[in-house]
């Protein structure tokens, strides 16, 4: 199944993003993260798609989990503890779906990864922060 996927993707990707753009990415000054991602995104047009697939599958899952943590923390005092957690959990699939869709619509795979990782860290940080402020251990 994967072989077909990639042979056909290759055909479609050859009409995709201009390969000349790739070397220019190397010129950008970026964070460590961005340089690391440059290193991973080889010039073969298959890689951006594979990279997006990884971002959508695992990054999206991580974002879904962390967003559920954040949502339950936000709702902790609005509703009871179990309700807050429950709401956070029910919504995870929607978050996951939206994240996956978004990953495949941004301009570059690199951007997808950067924003995803930033969002995950943001959610975790906010959750921890809110936990400290409201004084509830989670």
């Amino acid at each position: 199944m994967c072989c077909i996927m990639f042979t056909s993707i290759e055909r479609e990707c050859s009409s995709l993003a201009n390969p000349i753009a790739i070397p220019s990415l190397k010129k950008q000054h970026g964070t460590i993260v961005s340089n690391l991602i440059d290193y991973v995104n080889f010039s073969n047009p298959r890689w951006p798609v594979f990279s997006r697939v990884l971002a959508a599958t695992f990054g999206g899952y991580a974002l879904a989990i962390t967003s559920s943590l954040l949502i339950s923390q936000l709702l902790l005092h609005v509703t009871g503890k179990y309700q807050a957690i429950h709401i956070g959990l029910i919504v995870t699939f929607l978050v996951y779906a939206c994240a996956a869709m978004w990953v495949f619509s941004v301009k570059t795979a690199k951007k997808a990864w950067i924003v995803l990782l930033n969002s995950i860290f943001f959610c975790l940080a906010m959750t921890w922060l809110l936990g400290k402020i409201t004084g509830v251990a989670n």
Partner: protein
Amino acid sequence: MKDNFRQSMKWFHTWVGLIVGWILFFMFLTGTLGYFYQEITRWMEPERPFIEHNISNEQLLDIAQVYLSKHAQDIEQWDIMLPNARDQNLRVGWRKPAEPGEKRGKYQKTVIDVNTGDSIESRATGGGRLLYRMHYRLHYLSTKISYWIVGFCSMLMLLAVITGVVIHKKIFTDFFTFRAKKGLLGWLDIHNVLSVIALPFHFMITYSGLLFFLFTYMALSSNLQMSDEEYSEMRKEIFPRTIHLDSAKQPRDMLEISNLYQQVKKTWGADQLSYVEVFAANDINAQARFVRHETDITYNPADAVMVNAITGKLILQIPKAYTVTGMIHNGFFSLHEGQFAGPIARWIYFFTGLIGAAMIASGLILWTTKRKPKQVKQLNGPDFGYRLVEQLNIGTIVGLPIAIAMYFYANRLLPLDMVNRVNWEVNVMFISWAILLLYPAFRPAAKAWREQLQLAALVYMTLPLINILTTDKHIINSVLQQDWALFTFDLTLLVIGVCFAFSAYKYKALTLNKKVTKRRVKQREVTTDEGLFTVRQMNKENA
């Protein structure tokens, strides 16, 4: 990734649908059959008697209680299940005491013949229940792996549904458009129409399907936030269990169940009993819980009435205040399972499930139809990917229904005393599916389609005949005994067979037409007929 959002989502929608389309078709088809699983099980256990008309609920309760007092005297907890429109025989069940090495005893159910008061031994079969369980508990794989594969497919289905809506440019203006006479556009229109008319159902079914294993898929989140005790408390809040007293080990005579039922009838104002559960039987703490058909998707406390079996008085249960999230969660479950559905609503569920399956099938066919002109022009013939998709299409869209019919054949034809009969019925189904998946590799696509359609027609139309030859619960007797559930099953098989036959005939006509004339216009007309009738056949598959 492509030029604009819509094009990226179109690419995404195609890939997401293609990767898991066949597994999703399997899940939709077996799940749709599941709406009638009790009826299917009944057909697959022909030793069970025909329905008895004109017996009151009280009489049934008495007959059951007599049987239980003879065969389950020392059991504390037993159930009586009354015949209902779907499962038209009286049943009793109880949990046997745990054998050494078991946590709890096996639950035992038997059908009781109301004329003789004795139990009926049916042939070993998985019945309809095994068929529908396959749709979330893939056969041959362990529970854990199945749940994750099913979850992965459901997630991709959710993505397909959402992206499908996003990319459908003219979802309102094209709502009623079906250009049957325009070939590829016809297939696209079929796919769009089938998706849009049942869009609430598709979204509901997919999301509720994911919710079923919410705590498995998102275990990481719930483990990070709650301890184990908090987790079980939370589960009790969402899925409350009825509280009942345990046996106090003080024997006392209970009142007759049919007697207790009179109290319950007064509460409900109608004769609506579905089943009875008795706790701490023949004991000072004996209680009986009378349950009727669901009247609310979330929860209606009045659907279950608890009675003290010694005094006959109602035990008032404080209606539990459901949390909003609990209502949503349970609501989704009820909608997915459709347990609440009466006969008409159930047929609509069935039909809509078939629409879902046809939506997936039309999407898969659309993929090959779109690429066909370019692929057949290539020097070395079509690509491997294209041929693989076409082969899987034929083997699944027509092959899976044939395999399911083989399951029914196995039920009728396998020897009754065969070892592992249940497993072998299923093995027959999967072996035939495997053969039908491999077979198109050896035939040109058009011939393979036609031959499999013909085979499907033959297989479905002959099944009622085999039924007549092997059992006495066949279509003629069902009419004579006015057992409409059994009759409808055989009738549906015939209707499906006729639909397949019609599709095969139309497909043959159009492939012959294709050879005679190469005019573009004729070709389009001809592909559309194929499209239309294959869809009709897909829309009326199975029972």
